[in-house]
């Protein structure tokens, strides 16, 4: 698919927020010829691309300027979806919303469970 992006100070910002399966992701960008100041050193660019490719993920701090904090937080949240659905599958019919319980209530529940066990 084609997406519009704005280049600003060395970074690309997508105008439509995208959730990508892969990070980092290599993309091809069309730059209008008239926008070019000087021919870039090809070897240098390749080296940087390769570095970013092989270097695995782009650190969140540098990537954060590409997306807003809210988008980052949403992306992080969505990464939890497979784990949550795996737990729900294990729970089966027990999967249901329950009221909040404080740590103190959990400790009281433990005391009761131990009392049950040892009485």
């Amino acid at each position, binding site marked *: 698919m084609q997406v519009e992006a704005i280049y600003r100070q060395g970074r690309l910002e997508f105008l439509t927020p995208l959730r990508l399966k892969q990070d980092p992701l290599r993309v091809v960008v069309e730059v209008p010829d008239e926008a070019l100041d000087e021919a870039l050193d090809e070897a240098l660019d390749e*080296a940087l691309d*390769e570095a970013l490719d092989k270097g695995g993920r782009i650190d969140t*701090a540098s990537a*954060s300027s590409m997306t807003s904090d809210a988008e980052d*937080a949403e992306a992080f949240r969505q990464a*939890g979806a497979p784990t949550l659905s795996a737990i729900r599958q294990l729970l089966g019919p027990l*999967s249901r919303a329950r009221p909040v319980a404080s740590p103190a209530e959990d400790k009281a529940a*433990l005391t009761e*469970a131990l009392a*049950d066990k040892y009485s």
Partner: protein
Amino acid sequence: MKNLVFDVNVVLDLWLERQPEDRLLDIAALVSSRQRGDAFTWIASPSLHVLQSVANRQFKREGMEPTQAKKTVKQLLLNLLDNLQPLSAFGFDQDRTLLLHDDLEDAQIVKAASALQGETAILTNDKGYDTAGTSLLQLSPSEAVVWLREQAAEAPMAFIDLKTQQDALRPQLEQGIHRVLHHGQYILGPEVTELEQRLAAYTGAQHCITAASGTDALLISLMALGIGPGDEVITTPFTFVATVEVIVLVGATPVFVDIEPGTCNINAALIEAKISDNTKAIMPVSLYGQPADMDEINAIAARHGNLPVIEDAAQSFGAEYKGHKSCNLSTIGCTSFFPSKPLGGYGDGGAIFTSDDALAQACREIRVHGQSARYIHGRIGIGGRMDSLQCAVVLANLERFEQDIAQRQAVARRYHALIERKTEAKTRVETQEERGPDQVFSGRKAATAEAITLLPWPAPDRTSVFAQYSLRVQHRDAVQAKLKAAGVPTAVHYPMPMNQQPAYAHLCCPECTPVAAATAEQIMSLPMHPHLTEVEQRRIVDALVDTEGTTRLETDEES
């Protein structure tokens, strides 16, 4: 990488769905964050039975049949342990001070979490832990989501980060160390055999003989080759002292051959001129993690009566040369497991590799006082064994070794690209400033580019494991001071060639190896380890290239 230790209440929130959907997703994302490389995630061992008891009770109270409830909880725990690693509660920690706490379980969690090396937070809803005297944080899930994304930008930077390695492998390290405590075969135990077999298979060499250090590995190799007084060994002056020291220790004479400026490895083209009737071996060093020109060196050795070639691969274990692994490129290869090496232990250790059966046997005997059978000493040897505990640590580190190498190479590539780009940009600005904005960039090299010279990327026929990331800088002292002020540690490998060292200077004049002499004045190493982040690297490169006034050339080429 940061550590997150989950408390019971948060895990129960997830299992019992006691939070709104968004919060549940956040907790689930935190639970699975190790898989994505965002954090090391843990559950303290004392929490496991609590989770089991409370969840069990909850499900039974909701009418679930007890055996079914137990089964479900077991599955939930297994799922949890697929994501979180159990954190040990050591017996020696359960002492008087721990028992004085009101809540033993909480105190156990704090104690267990304190063992971790990196920044660590307990994930908790009520922050009721007594963390006094520790550097532990207490964060709610929503705070933890933000905390994980924050870079510790101004934190002191490590030159080599062994802390993250320890956190990454803590369960394997503990298991390996406890295995040795359990079987009690501290010397030449099963870990020694296992490590030797695994490393021989890894390199492709027929034999691996571990030794007490990289230095002992080199010493044993020279002894096994029968090198002694009157013999000469050709080597590089631009190395760690151990390479040269062992030659002198066996009574032989090091003969220094200058290095190539690009790799800082011995210049193979200069070796032949130094071969004499007394030459008994050639000892190239695969410096900074990159193999020397082993084919050329082996060919020279073959032309001169099959001289043995010992590769000092202390820094290059894991590197490749024409499809073969370093340590398996010549008669003998020796490596070191010094903690900061690409494959390290937590103490001294080393290994010898060879595919020559007789040499391997000789090395094994020399390692144990020249003993061929119990109390039969057919040769002179040393006490040069690597102990079982160190082998257990190296075995644990071996689990991440391939990943570590890939990350080291990625870090090096990023340095290369960032420095080239930055010096290029700065050169352009400086040139324009000097000539005025309307003058055309002529390609004349300006100050920055000349003040920093990268070592060329390894040739396509070999790889480097980047034990160091070194480059040349003019005015090194000033650059190091500036980087230090910016919180960036640096090192020099090495400030003085061996033929200038007081103990070895009589062996060869410094002018005889001019490239080594010049390199020693300019070489500088930047922080290098597999966990260096792009953000840290940008910080390093910014500080390096912006050392105006200190890196500018004093003379103008064109004037």
